[in-house]
């Protein structure tokens, strides 16, 4: 039995713990596997668990620790990490949540996954998602829905629903997701965790199954801003295999403690009065603005006059790129093949009809139509023009501010089946889509629970191109105000064998600012450690 409460450990705490030999990487891997085994039956975040890969990686970390070389290990040494199932990891299945790739085994490893492994992360498995990332609720997955850990009758958001739910239920401290129109930020918001969509080009897309190539970006989920920043440190940088990736030498943890004094925070009035924005979300975001102002930030009103057209542009550009990207799934070389066809045309048709689900088929047909002769000029070209306008809007706005604060999602998590109309579903991403269109970085930051629903609400922080450290800095300031994102209450005591020691983490150091979270025992490990004076105090937590 493990004598530490794995679920509460942040990446940073894991580092301290390994250094102090409070636990081994193997114990961490086993604890994470145990945690997944006991929790995921309810949440269904994992499509695949990879114990062998996790234990092998743990062994390498332990060997380095044993030989006194912990310093040579990367920043995520011993940290269990799981990946959205559109990310290739050699030898694992990469299904994209689709029948089409149900049995597809990766022949290579995605750069983002490799960088996590190089940083010492333990690969725990692959996470559920909307089919090919088409969706905002993870309901379009061919392999069942993932439940929101805060309310199992509600969706976790999507498309990276598995990634958000796995962190929110304390199965792993860090997961990766991908975001094409809000697919990291919206589920992070629904599940009350930190989710970062970096500036387009910051993280390599090589090996991540493409949805909208000009929109897709990979980013981390975590419960603390610092963990997200550590993950980002591992992920960023030029990749010779992705010619849209850019060099980056930023340490994203460097300015987290600097506070927001003197920072200019942009607020978009139109967003705050947008139709469909639920009052509890609006209230929370306004509350965050007040707190930032109180901390010394300058609040400036900015205009994004063309942002309203983002949705229209997105539903042209996204399907066009998706149509083309998904054309390789043709049943010939890999993937689902409908049997018994004598000619290629009928094999294509039958295999793609059966292999793709309704939302995927809808987007493929839409893209196919939008790119066809005579139609292209009417939609695709104007959509690109709109894209230029929106990009310019953000560029202008960031002349006046260092970071924009807005809602992430207009509402909190909805119930399964509650939204069946695709267009209404698409509106979940109303505040996130324009950021993908413009390529800026954006992240979702938990602001506690909604006054009405009692479910997590969030603010979205948006940064200028390649100034992602700006939004992380603001996020860290908010985190100090609101407290670290807790594990969803239903899962705080899920593992009986692990919870005996958790109390020692529960000593809240900032009770006064954590009032909005019901369970104060879920304080940040990092903060707790700081309060206790660092790793030495962990020695009392040695297992039996």
């Amino acid at each position, binding site marked *: 039995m493990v004598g530490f409460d794995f679920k509460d450990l942040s990446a940073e705490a894991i580092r301290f713990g390994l250094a102090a030999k409070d636990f081994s990487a193997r114990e961490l891997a086993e604890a994470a596997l145990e945690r997944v085994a006991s929790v995921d039956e309810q949440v269904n975040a994992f499509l695949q668990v990879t114990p062998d890969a996790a234990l092998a990686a743990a062994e390498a970390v332990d060997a380095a620790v044993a030989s006194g070389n912990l310093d040579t290990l990367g920043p995520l040494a011993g940290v269990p990490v799981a990946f959205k199932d559109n990310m290739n990891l050699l030898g694992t299945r*990469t299904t994209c949540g689709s029948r089409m790739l149900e049995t597809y085994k990766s022949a290579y490893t995605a750069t983002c996954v490799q960088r996590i492994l190089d940083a010492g992360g333990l690969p725990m498995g692959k996470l559920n998602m909307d089919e090919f990332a088409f969706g905002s609720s993870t309901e379009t997955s061919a392999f069942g829905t993932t439940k929101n850990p805060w309310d199992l009758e509600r969706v976790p958001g999507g498309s990276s629903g598995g990634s958000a739910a796995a962190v929110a239920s304390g199965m792993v401290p860090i997961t990766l997701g991908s975001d094409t129109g809000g697919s990291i930020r919206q589920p992070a918001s629904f599940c009350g965790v930190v989710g970062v969509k970096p500036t387009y080009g910051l993280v390599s897309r090589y090996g991540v199954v493409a949805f909208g190539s000009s929109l897709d970006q990979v980013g981390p989920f975590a419960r603390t801003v610092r963990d997200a920043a550590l993950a980002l440190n591992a992920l960023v940088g030029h990749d010779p295999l992705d010619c849209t990736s850019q060099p980056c030498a930023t340490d994203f943890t460097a300015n987290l403690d600097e506070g927001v004094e003197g920072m200019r925070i942009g607020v978009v009035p139109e967003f705050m009065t947008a139709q469909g924005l639920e009052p509890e979300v609006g209230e929370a975001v306004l509350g965050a603005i007040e707190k930032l102002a109180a901390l010394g930030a300058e609040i400036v009103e900015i205009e994004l006059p063309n942002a309203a057209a983002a949705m229209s542009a997105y539903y042209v550009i996204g399907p066009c790129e998706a*149509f083309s990207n998904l054309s390789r799934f043709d049943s010939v070389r890999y993937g689902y093949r409908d049997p018994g066809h004598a000619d290629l045309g009928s094999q294509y048709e039958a295999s793609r009809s059966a292999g793709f689900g309704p939302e995927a088929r809808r987007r493929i047909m839409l893209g196919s139509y939008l790119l*066809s002769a005579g139609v292209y000029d009417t939609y695709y070209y104007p959509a690109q023009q709109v894209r230029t306008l929106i990009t310019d809007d953000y560029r202008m706005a960031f002349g006046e501010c260092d970071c924009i604060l807005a809602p992430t999602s207009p509402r909190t998590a909805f119930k399964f089946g509650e939204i069946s109309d695709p267009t209404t579903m698409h509106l979940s991403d109303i505040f996130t889509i324009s950021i993908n269109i413009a390529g800026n970085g954006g992240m979702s930051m938990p602001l506690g629970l909604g006054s009405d629903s009692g479910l997590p609400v969030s603010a979205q922080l948006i940064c200028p191109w390649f100034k992602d450290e700006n939004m992380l800095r603001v996020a860290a300031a908010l985190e100090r105000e609101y407290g670290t994102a807790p594990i969803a209450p239903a899962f705080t005591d899920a593992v009986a064998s692990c919870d005996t020691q958790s109390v020692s983490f529960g000593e809240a150091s900032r009770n006064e600012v954590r009032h909005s979270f019901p369970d104060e025992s879920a304080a940040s490990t990092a903060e707790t450690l700081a309060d206790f004076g660092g790793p030495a105090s962990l020695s009392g937590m040695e297992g039996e």
Partner: protein
Amino acid sequence: MKTMEEVLRDWEAVIGLEIHCELTELETKMFCGCKLEFGAAPNTHTCPVCLGLPGALPVPNKAAIESIVLAGLATNCDIEKHTLFYRKGYMYPDMAKNFQTTQGPKAFAMRGWLDLDVDGKGAQERLDVRDLEVGARVQSATRTETGYTTHIGITRIHMEEDAGKMIHIGGGEGRIDGATHSLVDYNRAGTPLMELVTEPDLRTPEEARLFMQKLRQVYLSLGISDCSLEEGSMRADGNISLRRRGETELGTRTEMKNINSFKALHDALAYEICRQAEVLEGGGVVVQETRHWDPGAKHTITMRTKETADDYRMFPDPDLAPYDLSDEFIEGVRAKLPELPDQKAARFQRTWGLSAYDARHVIEHRDTAGFFEVAMAQAGADAETLAKPIANLIINDLAARRSADESFDLATCPFTPARAVELAGLRASDAISSKQEKEVLEAVFAEDKDPAVVVEERDMKQVSDAGAIEAVVDAVLAANPDKVAEYRGGKTGLLGFFVGQCMKEMAGQGNPKLINQLLAEKLSV
């Protein structure tokens, strides 16, 4: 069916070419690091990118961009500084991603041209130019001494990737009809491929053939491709339509794809001219379609009818950033331009006094041009005298060997530039006759010996001693008094008879020029 010449009296053919050329001299593929190698075991040069595996991304090969800019500069194109790669969608297993990455409305190279010199029999196909005076023009053709010159516009040269190779099993001769299954080899998938598109400026099959040949010379001089027609690294699609002479509207065209020999290109177009004329003259309409040239049966058959244009759903490839070429880059490439075939031909004319015709044909192949230059260097002071005879050896004898034997390799054959100089020298000094020259050349090839050694061994030196020849001439005339009388009576055609008799007496070694001269003198007395 009428002959092409008959057809061309009433009809004008309008021909455009699309010529694909793989950049075989590069190390790696267009968008991944896989090695380029023809003939490797199937699917051994593949990776996630060229196999179109989920998540793989393309990264352009800079050396390929350099090559196409070089090709553009060599064919008088404007280089477009700002271009995009596009995705051209089509579902077929030879293209693993089910789209081909190619270029859109703007290609790296646009608006170029090449001038063609057409002469010999091929020039006769151009009926509207044939009877013009030298210097006179019709359309873009100008009549020359030996034929005509014509200006062919190049619309564009764009960069794209080649597809994999499909192998159909179970059908006849590897064809898809009747095949039970197909195999795909992706070694070729992603090979950098340049596609050149001409304006519809070509008027005869010979012009089309010459254009492709000249383009091949240019590409070879640039060292960017092996331009192997047999291995398919260079291949042409021919578009052709007919219109009544004097009309300016274009007729409906047919297209023949993947033609991989100069002769096939000529013959397929010539056949189409005749076929379309028959259709049109019979009151029918030409159907816009792709036709397949069957070189064995010497006809074209319908492959695919185009009711409507294919919809490739082209759009800019979002994985590849817009390509911006700097002036520095372009000038850097320009500095690498080698001497081009036309420049080389001009230099050969200038330096060694070759005629335009000879120079053009000497440089037709890279190896013959090099051979000629080495020979000229070795000829030293005699270079100018021997230039024409050596050019003749190249244009006539070596060309014949090359066309008779596909594996003919000038670089390794026994006939070296030094031996060419020696042979041409023997002939120029009248040491051997032109007939003997051929015999010596045969022997050089067969026995790998120097020409002088062959002449020595066979004792075949030409007799140019005037005294010895005069004795023979006198004897022949004395032996044929009746023929001498007939000649003097006006049957001057008998001169050949006397020459033949003299040569016979001298075992073929008499100098024919001297024999002729002496006979003419003595018979006219």
